[in-house]
């Protein structure tokens, strides 16, 4: 009887493992095998010798990496971009979400949302193309500058304009989309709070300050911590497209450096070393962010 039961049980379970198999295989091949490849950071990998026979070199690549001037420049560029996004992009999304939620004309609200969400779905290449049409040497911005002020600017090949332009692109593409998570949180606010505030004679700004913003606190704290946790991640597609030899002093970030060293100069082991440094620090930061969220009495990210 027990044998029959067990047989029944297995007969019922194997289809689930069969269904799960392709997905598990995918995660092994395209996510776990590459983690294994991180070992190459401790070897002097040459494709001609092969992964196994390449000699171990211990921490040599790490020592080399940390002793270069590149390291400090990359760290500075990466952190500055994250910082500018944090202090400009992030507040803009919150502000935009509050503005959308305060709209009292539903048709205008729907139209606004339709417009501001759209750029999120465009590729970075398309946005790069639009940027060139606007900020390029013969772009419309330079025509306006010439017509009205008699001057022009090299936006795309300048160290000074790189960061503002990249933050502006990020806002243009994703600020609207970023409001969704705040709007979802705002939808959960009890309308009675606003009714009560109205009875007490509060104006709209007081409503926002005393009801709306406090209701967004958990969402803001969690997203803020997530952003801090991913400080070393740059928006690689965006940077890859916007970078060039004339703005490399400010545009060279860890991700880009890995690409140049590893896939253009074929210095695999050194590229993997830089990538691994980034992955490990990011992991620590995310875990710390999660811990901090719990410590602050929030649910935590996971």
């Amino acid at each position, binding site marked *: 009887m027990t044998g029959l039961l067990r047989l029944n049980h297995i007969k019922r379970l194997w289809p689930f493992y069969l269904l799960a198999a*392709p997905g598990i295989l995918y995660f092994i091949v395209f996510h776990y095998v590459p983690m294994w490849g991180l070992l190459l950071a401790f070897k002097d990998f040459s494709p001609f010798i092969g992964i196994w026979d390449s000699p171990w070199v211990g921490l040599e690549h790490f020592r080399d990496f940390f002793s270069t001037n590149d390291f400090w420049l990359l760290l500075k560029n990466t952190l500055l971009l994250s910082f500018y996004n944090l202090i400009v992009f992030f507040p803009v999304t919150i502000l935009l979400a509050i503005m959308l939620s305060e709209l009292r004309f539903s048709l205008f609200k729907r139209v*606004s949302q339709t417009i501001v969400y759209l750029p999120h779905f465009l590729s970075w290449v*398309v946005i790069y193309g639009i940027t060139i049409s606007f900020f390029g040497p013969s772009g419309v911005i330079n025509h306006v500058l010439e017509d009205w002020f008699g001057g022009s600017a090299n936006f795309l090949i300048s160290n000074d304009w790189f960061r503002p332009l990249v933050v502006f692109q990020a806002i243009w593409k994703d600020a609207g989309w970023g409001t969704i998570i705040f709007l979802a949180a705002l939808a959960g606010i009890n309308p009675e709070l606003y009714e009560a505030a109205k009875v007490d004679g509060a104006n709209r700004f007081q409503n926002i300050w005393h009801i709306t913003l406090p209701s967004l606190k958990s969402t803001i704290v969690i997203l803020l911590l997530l952003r801090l946790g991913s400080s070393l991640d740059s928006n690689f597609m965006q940077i890859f497209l916007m970078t*060039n030899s004339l703005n490399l002093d400010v545009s060279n970030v860890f991700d880009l450096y890995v690409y140049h060293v590893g896939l253009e100069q074929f210095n695999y082991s050194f590229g993997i070393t830089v990538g691994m440094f980034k992955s490990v620090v*990011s992991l620590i930061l995310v875990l710390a962010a999660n811990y901090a969220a719990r410590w602050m009495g929030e649910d935590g990210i996971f």
Partner: protein
Amino acid sequence: MKLKRISAFDGLNVLLLILFSLTIILPFLYIIAVSFSPPSESLAGNFYLIPKRLTLAAYEYLLQAPTFLRSIRNSVVITALGTCVNLIISITLAYALSKKFVPGRRIILLFIFFTMIFHGGLIPNYLVVKNLGLIDSLWAVVLPAASSAFNIMVIRTFFQGLPESLDEAARIDGAGEFRILFSIVLPLSKPIIATFALFFMVQYWNEFFSAIIYLNDTTRWPIQPLLRQMVAIGSSNISSEAALDASLAAQLGPNVQNAAILLAMLPIIAVYPFLQKYFAKGALLGSIKE
């Protein structure tokens, strides 16, 4: 009828939102205008938004340019393949993991979740694709992005929300597990399948970087890398290909470049109304928390 009293607050709010919306809309209008103008007009800056002379030359050129058409065809193949593969892998795994009676499910979930916070990174990924012999194959663009932890978690949460009594009843009636999945669960999951199908389509149509690193043979390129080459300006890239890119771009003229930008985003604009219908319902805000 109650008239809404429009305060200064509302007025300012509407004004600011109109300004923000304009910064999004005006670039589109400008791109359209340039694509229909003779290059001499836009290069000289003879107009800002309303072209003075119209020409279809850019579209006539692109719609019979073999390289451009080939890249569109590659993009269509990648998008179709990728969407199907992604749907199959993600749905089957998410479904299996949504069943509480499947032993080992928590450890598999943890195994998948870990990929969200730790990555091998660019070069190990490249070496895997290379060792699988996928260089210069369209599968190199499809397979590495064939699922993601986030998608699995969201689809799984959806499946868990379906009433268990349904498949229990079918099981008692003797239906096999595959029959239950295909005839009962999937028909009930049409909205989430449609949502993810649309997101996967957008994801693959917009795919750019994996094509750059995995497809050395530019005849296999989809539209995005070709578009970058078409719009690249002088010294826009550090690699030695940059000079080539720039000279090609200079020959094309702004009308062709902007027409290419428009054609590359056209499929996205076409599916956008459907996309919006689903994400507006918060379909993707499903919790990824275990």
